[in-house]
């Protein structure tokens, strides 16, 4: 169990808890039950948690799978810098957000689920994980690989043809020295 990224699971749980809190809040407000103000709070808190948790963080190792359309929210969440990057802050935030939900029945379930997510975030923070945004990498210009595509820069190590032609009148003068030393193939 050594390399589990707990933050990924905590993120799924927090998103689900946000939805449960939102649903409970809607039921409470629609039914106009007693203490329905807590249900209205549940709606607001649920929406906030969903927006915060929708952009998935980048995995430390391996490929990260984005959620559909999360780019805009990634940019927003990234803009808050260390507040959203640190998981201790998130754990505390979720723990604080879930407390008012306990006062009314429809939001109790969302409250407990958010508390569980907060605990898993605490575990992730203790293990030193951080939220890093998934952003598309800038395109590097395509460079052809070195080996075969480049034309050779130097001519082969021999002088031009007319000089190479053996001049029988002048055998001494027709010998030449290779400009680049030629080695034998081992």
């Amino acid at each position, binding site marked *: 169990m050594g390399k589990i990224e707990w933050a990924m*699971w905590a993120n799924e749980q927090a*998103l*689900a808890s946000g939805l449960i809190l939102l649903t409970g809040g809607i039921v*409470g407000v629609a039914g106009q039950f007693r203490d329905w103000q807590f249900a209205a709070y549940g709606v607001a808190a649920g929406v906030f948690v969903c927006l915060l948790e929708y952009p998935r963080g980048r995995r430390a190792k391996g490929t990260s*799978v984005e959620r559909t359309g999360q780019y805009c929210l990634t940019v927003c969440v990234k803009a808050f810098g260390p507040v959203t990057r640190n998981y201790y802050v998130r754990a505390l935030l979720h723990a604080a957000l879930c407390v008012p939900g306990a006062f009314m*029945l429809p939001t109790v379930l969302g409250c407990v689920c958010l508390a569980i997510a907060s605990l898993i975030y605490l575990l992730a923070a203790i293990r030193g994980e951080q939220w890093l945004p998934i952003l598309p990498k800038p395109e590097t210009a395509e460079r052809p*690989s070195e*080996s075969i595509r480049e034309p050779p820069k130097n001519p082969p190590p021999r002088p031009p043809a007319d000089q190479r032609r053996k001049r029988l009148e002048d055998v001494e003068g027709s010998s030449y020295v290779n400009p680049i030393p030629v080695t034998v193939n081992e």
Partner: protein
Amino acid sequence: MPGRGRMAVSWRSWTANEGAKHIVMVLWLAANAGLFWKTFALYYYGPQYYYLHRMLGLGLCLSRASAAVLNLNCCLVLLPMCRAVLAVLRGSQKVTSQRARRLLDKSKSFHVACGVAICIFSVVHVSAHLANVYSFSLRYSEEFPSLNVARHKGEDPRVIIFTTVPGVTGVVLVFILFFMFTASSYGIRVSSYEVFWYTHNLFIVFYVVLLVHVAGGALKYQTNVEDHPPGCLRPNATPAGGSDSVCQAEPQFQAHFPQTWLWVSGPLCLYCAERLYRYVRSCGLVHVETVVLHPCRVVEVRMLKSGFTARPGQYIILNCPSVSSFESHPFTLTTCPTGARAAFGIHVRVVGDWTERFAEQLLSDDAADAEILPVVQRRRFPKMYVDGPFGSSSEDVFSYEVSLCVAGGIGVTPFASVLRALTEDWQQYKLRRLYFVWVCRELGSFYWFAELLCNLHQKLWQENRPDYLNIQLYLSQADGLQHLLEKRFEALNARLHGGRPRWPSLFEDIAKANRNKRVGVFCCGPRGLSRALRKLCNSQRSPGATFEYNKESFS
């Protein structure tokens, strides 16, 4: 350039590929909708629920209707997971036609669909019951005290929930479902499979608590509707007008027999029986015969187990307690036991921490260089348990006359056992022509089965069937084709290409060479590959061949 018309979906190909699956989906949706509507109408109009409906309102009908749908889906969700039963169904040629067997490939998708339905209808059910709790509290009935769940008028709804059996068990069920659902997304399964597996095994707790939840008897129906028609008047009450009859008796209320027990107990017993059978079957001792280290981090393990038989294309689930006591992993068999040789083998790619530790324990310390030499057999290999074999779609390669097998990297393992079976005796099968396309990233990967491919190719040439096997190997890295395979695999070198295969032209060639035939397409590889192939299978036009798509799925 192929025009846009060529890629349009061909109706005949679409129905051959996707038709059966969509019919099953429509039937399932119809069953859910029908059950929801029938139960809703029963509680809305039924006279035995008149007083309860008056107290609770719409919440009663919604909660009971969604409970009925939940019954159906909790029953169906277990059935696709009975792997041994599915393997038997797949293997029995007489019982199922080939079209039905292709439906069995979709069992995991059906399980996911039922799971999603359970989650959605649980939300409806819980919301409706939350409203019901408030109604029980606010509309506490002095007239019919046995109908009440609250103890007095205006009782705090939270107290009602947490002090009644259905309430507490309902809350526990919500939390279990919350854990199971949040750990089942694709991202979690891909990154940390253990979290998914351990939380998903909470399902047994879910079912036990569910059986207690429905026995609570909170909602009651009226038993004596003939004696006391709902809305009738008390004997001493003044008639308000109209023709209401006079009551002859007080209404009697009784809780339902928990219908869920009937729905759920069958599949639950079947599943538990199957797990027990699999456990007993996997208790047999497994002896490791040889361990071979192949290039590109692949380890081949050959094992012996008494009484083990398997068909080509099946897979096993391996459990090694010294690596991890609870984790089990599926591996396709690359060598099936035959009459001559009883050993069976798997190829394990070392890619995660379980496989790393498994490989470490199998290989000795001084096998650091990656030569293909059998490691000297040690006396103490780790103890292993093998569960299986289970069926997969690759078993159907032999039931087509023409098959196209596309493998991506280690996805070649199901086809390795198929090729081995062909090497033993290719004439007994219905298969007449096999197109084998293998796409890898590194050249060394081809060495896993280079010898097998060359042997089969050689044998078919010598037996005068050169058109039986068409091999195409692709090295997908653009600049990878700097070296070739060793000299003795000359036949493979001649069929080695650089870059990715061009699927439309390959499909066109196959269609032209096999007119009016059904070609089975089998793919085991990354998602992008299978998606591209499925699209092509659906878009082929007649009078070429019809391509039927079969896909492996593991995670």
